[in-house]
């Protein structure tokens, strides 16, 4: 269940292509081709899971939970996870190359961000395993205490934009709290997850504790979301698919659901902002990862007084973006992940033009080969335009202006999404006050897209349910039981 990649990239070991179930790589009921977005060529064929394989994975997880994992001490769980993190560090280069090849992100990012954060996230949660405390609550005549127990089998469905990082955000807290997991990677970027699977086996995890499968959302994902033995499903992806996951849970066993969905996050830049700083961050905020980030700051509102200056400098800064081949160390922006995504983004750019917005920069394909799109800035964008309302998920930003703080807040909150936001101002009062008024799960002040393993991340409104990262994520993967032992209470 492996192959050598048909590329110019040296791979130390053969790349796994099977389904990772019960610590073995096995066949699926069909295959999916995964494509290199830098040149549109097929990299490899991977096994995809049908009903039989999804059932096998869930059964493996259930058995592992009942018979093995629930009897492993928290300290031992920690040791397995620390070992996995060490192996990720050891194989950072190989994992990074695979991630870059399959997703198209610059190699410096795969290495310096995605794969590094994978290890950090696992290490962070390894530290939680023996620190999940219940409470003892004073009640008369009764000893009352709570246990924060694992759910059992947890399912997860992750997207293609940060393949290994999204994997980490789900498996780390789930395993730390004592659950067994079946996780479906994106069919667009299956390879890095399978490399992690090989490390999971090497780290010594008992079979069935962590199962990693590939498949289409509407087949494999759906089977997982409605499986009656799965006690919880965690999904990251588009809001539309999030609705389907919630529906599947409702129609099956009312499994617990957490969702990390889309966003149309506002970035408010005030007259008194450090302009150069704001521009650097605003640029990263939207163009990082080729705009393929749920929390991208895709609506920029600039206060009147500095609007013209901002546009001029922002255009200049953006035009210097280094677009290039993913394996080039200097590349900031690689190709979009797939033809479909490319078409969708170009479609939005077209709509933007048709609806009357101005293309201040970009707006076209870049190069001859691969799914590259120029970093694109729209100005003269009205609130009701499609490109201002809908998530584009590409290197496209809409810039508009405002006068007062109240207006800024109104514009910021004028969306059904609520994932993240940013404020740029040197005024202490304004930053604290507005941070309170913005309806978003993250408010960045004088920075954007700054994430930490130990701070929570998640959305208000239609951007999702639940929080990932930090201590908060533990709640997603535990259920509270209260035990009340009567001592002196008479009937």
């Amino acid at each position, binding site marked *: 269940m492996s192959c050598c990649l048909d590329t110019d990239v040296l791979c130390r070991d053969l790349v796994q292509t099977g389904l990772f179930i019960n610590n073995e790589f096995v066949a699926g009921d069909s295959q999916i081709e995964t494509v290199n977005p830098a040149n549109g060529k097929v990299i490899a064929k991977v096994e995809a899971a049908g009903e039989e394989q999804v059932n096998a994975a869930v059964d493996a997880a259930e058995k592992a939970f009942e018979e093995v994992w629930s009897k492993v001490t*928290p*300290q031992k769980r*920690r*040791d397995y996870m*620390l070992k996995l993190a060490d192996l990720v560090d050891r194989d950072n280069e190989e994992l990074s190359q695979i991630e870059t090849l399959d997703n198209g992100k610059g190699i410096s990012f795969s290495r310096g961000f995605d794969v590094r954060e994978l290890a*950090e996230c696992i*290490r*962070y949660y*390894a*530290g*939680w*395993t*023996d*620190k999940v*405390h219940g409470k003892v609550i004073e009640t008369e005549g009764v*000893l009352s205490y709570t246990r924060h127990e694992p759910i059992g089998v947890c399912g997860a469905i992750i997207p293609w934009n940060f393949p290994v990082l999204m994997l980490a955000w789900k498996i780390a807290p789930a395993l730390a709290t004592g659950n067994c997991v079946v996780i479906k990677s994106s069919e667009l970027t299956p390879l890095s997850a399978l490399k992690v699977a090989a490390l999971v086996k090497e780290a010594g995890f008992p079979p069935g504790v962590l199962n990693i499968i590939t498949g289409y959302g509407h087949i494999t994902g759906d089977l997982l979301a409605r499986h009656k033995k799965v006690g919880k499903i965690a999904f990251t992806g588009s809001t539309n698919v999030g609705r389907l996951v919630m529906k599947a849970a409702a129609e099956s066993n009312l499994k617990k659901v957490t969702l990390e969905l889309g966003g149309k996050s506002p970035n408010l830049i005030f007259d008194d902002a450090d302009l150069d700083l704001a521009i650097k961050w605003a640029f990263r905020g939207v163009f990082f990862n080729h705009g393929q980030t749920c929390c991208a700051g895709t609506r920029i509102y600039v206060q009147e007084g500095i609007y013209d200056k901002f546009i001029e400098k922002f255009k200049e800064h953006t035009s210097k973006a280094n677009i290039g081949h993913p394996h080039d160390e200097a590349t900031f922006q690689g190709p979009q992940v797939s033809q479909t995504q490319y078409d969708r983004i170009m479609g939005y750019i077209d709509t933007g033009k048709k609806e009357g917005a101005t293309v201040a920069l970009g707006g076209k394909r870049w190069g001859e080969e691969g799914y590259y799109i120029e970093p694109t800035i729209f100005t003269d964008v009205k609130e009701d335009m499609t490109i201002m309302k809908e998530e584009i998920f590409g290197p496209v930003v809409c810039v508009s202006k405002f006068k007062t703080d109240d207006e800024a807040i109104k514009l910021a909150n004028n969306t059904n999404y609520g994932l993240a936001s940013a404020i740029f101002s040197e005024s*202490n*009062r304004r930053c*604290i*006050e507005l941070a*309170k008024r913005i309806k978003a799960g993250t408010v960045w002040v004088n920075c954007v897209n700054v994430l930490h*393993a*130990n701070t929570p991340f998640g959305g208000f409104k239609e951007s999702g349910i639940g929080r990932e990262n930090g*201590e908060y994520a533990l709640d997603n993967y535990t259920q509270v039981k209260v035990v009340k*032992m009567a*001592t*002196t209470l008479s009937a």
Partner: protein
Amino acid sequence: MTAETQADIQTIKTQSGQTLKVHTHLFINNEFVAGHGPLIETVNPTTEEVICKVHSASEEDVDAAVQAAYTSYKNVWSKVTPADRGILINKLADLMERDQDELASLEAIDNGKAFSVARDDDIAGCIGCYRYFAGWADKIHGKVIDTSPDQLVYTRHEALGVVGAIIPWNYPLMMAAWKFAPALAAGNSIVMKTSELTPLSAYKFAALVKEAGFPAGVVNIITGYGHITGSALAGHRKVSKMAFTGSTVTGRRIMESSSTSNLKKLQLELGGKSAQIVCADADLKNAAKHAAAGIFNNHGQSCNAGSRIFVQESVAKEFIDLFTEQAKAIVVGCPFKDETNQGPQVSKGQFDKIMSYIKIGQEEGATLHFGGERVGDKGYFISPTVFTNCKNDMTIMREEIFGPVVAIGTFTNVEEAIELANDNEYGLAAGVYTSNHSTAIKVSNALLAGSVWVNCYDLFNNSVPFGGYKQSGFGKELGKYALLEYTQVKSVITLVDF
């Protein structure tokens, strides 16, 4: 100042024929430096021979160590990220695991505990402790508190700065771990004085601190007499907190010293005279096994030793027989022999003290049921000793003996047992053996002790807090609670609307 000095590395031989190289200088600022205090001989309690001499710290050396800790905290350590602190602490655990045999040998030769116990209990415990607290480093959260709409209010749980620690000789490396691990996780720099009776293993540990990559000055390890080195550390004005484990007598001095210097925060783990209550409905075999471990573990040299046993009258004879069988089965001998359970007491001083208590016990009318003598004629070995027919006001029922000597009395009903257990100045730990659910809860609720064991004794876990009631001290070690001892809370109140 002493004229006598010696090189840092000395070669020593264990009684099992092993040759080890040990550090004997003070560990300050990541270097082994000569001390200006007296050279101290450390004795092998199995052979009664001097192992080697070690350097001790004068007041001047203590000051140098504190300055190193202070400078490193201010300029370096306070700027290291929490996650990186966790990584360094985990590295330390890995190195202890790598060198566990050597560390265990040093414990066995210097303290006298069995090699296998040193390795499988003490050092395994240390490794677990460092790994546990490494995980806390980036999880020390303040709170945001909703006061009114025009304010932002939050708390920060900040490091204290320089922490001083004075540890005893009964679990040299483990007592060090219980202090180092939470102190470092919370971001403090530290100066630790080890016991002059057992200085060797910590100096070896110091080399691992350097190897792990801790910045210089974050961890400083010195040894010396309590009245010179300990006193200088306890009174130092740049030390923000003192964590002490040892006798209640010394604990009082440390508290006094804080009051006359800079009111440094204190944490005291002192003595105990912990009671084990055996009810008639207990599984007596289980009770005998755990109760025996409860007193005889570590040769009775545990602050939480279950040294008073109260057994319900109706099962007293049966229990005492089962208990004595356990005591008889203990193999007393050389720490390096595989079959040894119990090695010698740590020093002549301790040996003499324990033997005198055994004498007093007999003089006051308790029945010497088993043991009571020295074992062999070389080394500070004392037989596991069982006194029965003890009354709660006898000396051997009130004072901490710190040796393998248990005093057993009886009770008629559970309420009486609780009274007897609580009628003591100490309150470190306690045990209750019963098969009745309600009794277990009722008794554990009523006992005035920091740890209560039910149907077991002496079971520790790095995630569970430990620390005494009453004159057994204050403050908790281990578990999340320990972090409170090594942080200080700052409230930040920002007015926004004005």
